[in-house]
């Protein structure tokens, strides 16, 4: 009986096996890297309506975070400041600036500024700023060193595993209450001791069950 396949086809199964292994490895690697929020979300830096510089205000001028984000210690939401807060200073400082024109327009018309939100959690996540500040988690732990940023950008993945990393083991992220807005805080050598004490005092026990965040 005549051969159906030429001789070289004998190699096909080995090559096919190799190809399958390579394809699976590439696919896994591709999604592992490009599918991760570390790739998709970190580095998000939208253009804002006014070139507001956190580096100038919070860094060089040293304005406390809470001067503008007033509700952060008392409310789940750290508010984006209303135009009125900008105008507290800018009525006097640079009142004629070109760049500040949209702010003055908003001030005159009463229509809010359209700031673009950078750190945006999904709606099914319940996140409470006040609770985290009470526990002593610093602004910089999640938002990075904002005082160094000309334009604010997302530096952490804000993924569920990233949240859980701290919820499961928060000790090294807890600060004394007066250090939460410090952008350059580093844990002291007795951090673990401090964390144990403050956790006992304040009853800090971060939830890791579903309904802790998905209420």
């Amino acid at each position: 009986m005549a051969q159906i396949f030429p001789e070289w086809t004998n190699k096909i199964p080995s090559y096919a096996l190799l190809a399958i292994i390579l394809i699976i490895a590439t696919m896994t690697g591709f999604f592992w890297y490009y599918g991760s929020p570390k790739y998709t979300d970190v580095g998000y830096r939208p253009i804002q309506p006014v070139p507001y510089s956190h580096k100038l205000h919070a860094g060089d001028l040293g304005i406390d975070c809470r001067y503008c984000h007033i509700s952060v210690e008392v409310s789940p939401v750290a508010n984006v400041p209303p135009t009125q807060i900008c105008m507290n200073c800018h009525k006097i400082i640079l009142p004629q600036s070109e760049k500040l024109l949209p702010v003055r327009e908003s001030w005159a018309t009463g229509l809010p500024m359209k700031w673009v939100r950078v750190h945006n959690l999904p709606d099914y996540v319940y996140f409470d700023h006040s609770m985290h500040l009470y526990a002593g988690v610093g602004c910089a732990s999640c938002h990075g060193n904002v005082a160094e940023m000309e334009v604010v950008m997302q530096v952490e993945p804000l993924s569920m595993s990233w949240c859980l990393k701290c919820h499961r083991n928060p000790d090294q992220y807890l600060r004394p209450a007066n250090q939460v807005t410090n952008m350059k805080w580093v844990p002291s050598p007795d951090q673990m001791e401090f964390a144990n004490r403050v956790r006992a005092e304040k009853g800090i026990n971060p939830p890791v069950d579903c309904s802790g965040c998905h209420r």
Partner: protein
Amino acid sequence: MRSESGTYNQIGLHSQETPLITGNQTFASVTDAISEIIERKTPRLWYLAIAFSSSLMIMFFVLIGYLIWEGIGIWGINVPVGWGWAIVNFVFWVGIGHAGTLISAILFLLRQRWRTSINRFAEAMTLFAVICAMIFPAIHVGRIWVAYWMFPLPNQMDMWPNFRSPLIWDVFAVSTYFTVSLLFWYVGLIPDLATLRDRAKSRLRKILLGIFSLGWRGGNRQWKHYELAYLLLAGLSTPLVLSVHSVVSTDFATSVLPGWHTTIFPPYFVAGAIFSGFAMVMTLSIIARKVFKLEDFITIGHFEKMSKIMLLTGMMVGYAYSIEFFMAWYSGNDYEAFAFLNRAFGPYAWAYWIMITCNVVVPQVFWFRKLRTSIPVLFVSSILINVGMWFERFVIVVSSLSRDFLPSSWGYYTPTIYDVGIFVGSFGLFLTLFLLFVRFLPIIAVSEIKGVLPQADPHYGKEH
């Protein structure tokens, strides 16, 4: 020779038994008879049948598309009955899938040589039934685009399936079962595919069959490896026959709900699965035997043996029904007692008594040789048994859920047109796959049949 062919049975103790294969077959006539079925011109009846079944299949997929678009609210499920027909159908189809491995693995290890006539399409039926089964839990999750959460894949949420939940065991059990059954079926097909390849006339057929027969030449060394591989696969799949439906039953048994929370569930489910699986094999083989004129290969003797297994497993199922009542009384637990009284005399009593009639009363006909050798009786009773087994799952799922602990939450479950359509449509998928199988693959294991012919006996033709 023919009158004495029984003497050449492997063990030699069944000399009075009828031969497994009738019609004085030779090796060549077996090959011809079975290969001819798929080599001849496609019969018009086949086109009609597949037109019908694939229309149902298209309806199935369209309805599933609508379900995904609109959400599972189009089904009749609601509080308190959150598991409706979809789960009933899942258990029903998985159960049917059990006969395939039982026949191919356990009967193989037990040297039940009559299995050779029915194992090929019982295994095919298993695969197709498991495909139908796997669709139901997948679409029941509602948000099907996150169905991959059922698998333990590393992800940015650090989220894993709950390994303490039987639902994840289910994913593993059913997917393992499907994979092993597919391998088993395919390995069994290789020598037959090679036979077909060697008979093939057209170039395309030669190439396709050549690829799938993996270079089989039928040499002695190949047979030696092949038989070892087959034996190992049989060994691997034997525990699966018991494990898959046991795991399915723990979906119910581990939840604290009267009517579900019983330790009898795993063996009871496995017996029921084999019961329904054999009934489906019987229904299909009666049709295939008639249509393809396979009376010599699937004899009345085969049907008799299958009906004895159905009689046994049917009585095991009946025993489980009665033990459930006994336990409900013996436990002294009011809720348990209520759940079972409610089953038999409550709003779902109609379903319960259909189940009892079909699963306990109907198989009793198999006690009588006259009835179990009558094809019409076997055909009707095998269909009734599958109706009964569907109702068994319906009774378990729905009657237990509809009576919540809080009487204010009690409800009555009614399926919608979409429940019915998707269930009927799943038969379309099953039948379409089966019709493709009977058209393109040998429906009886040619090489294995040859092994049970009298000529295969080393002492054939010698006087003792």
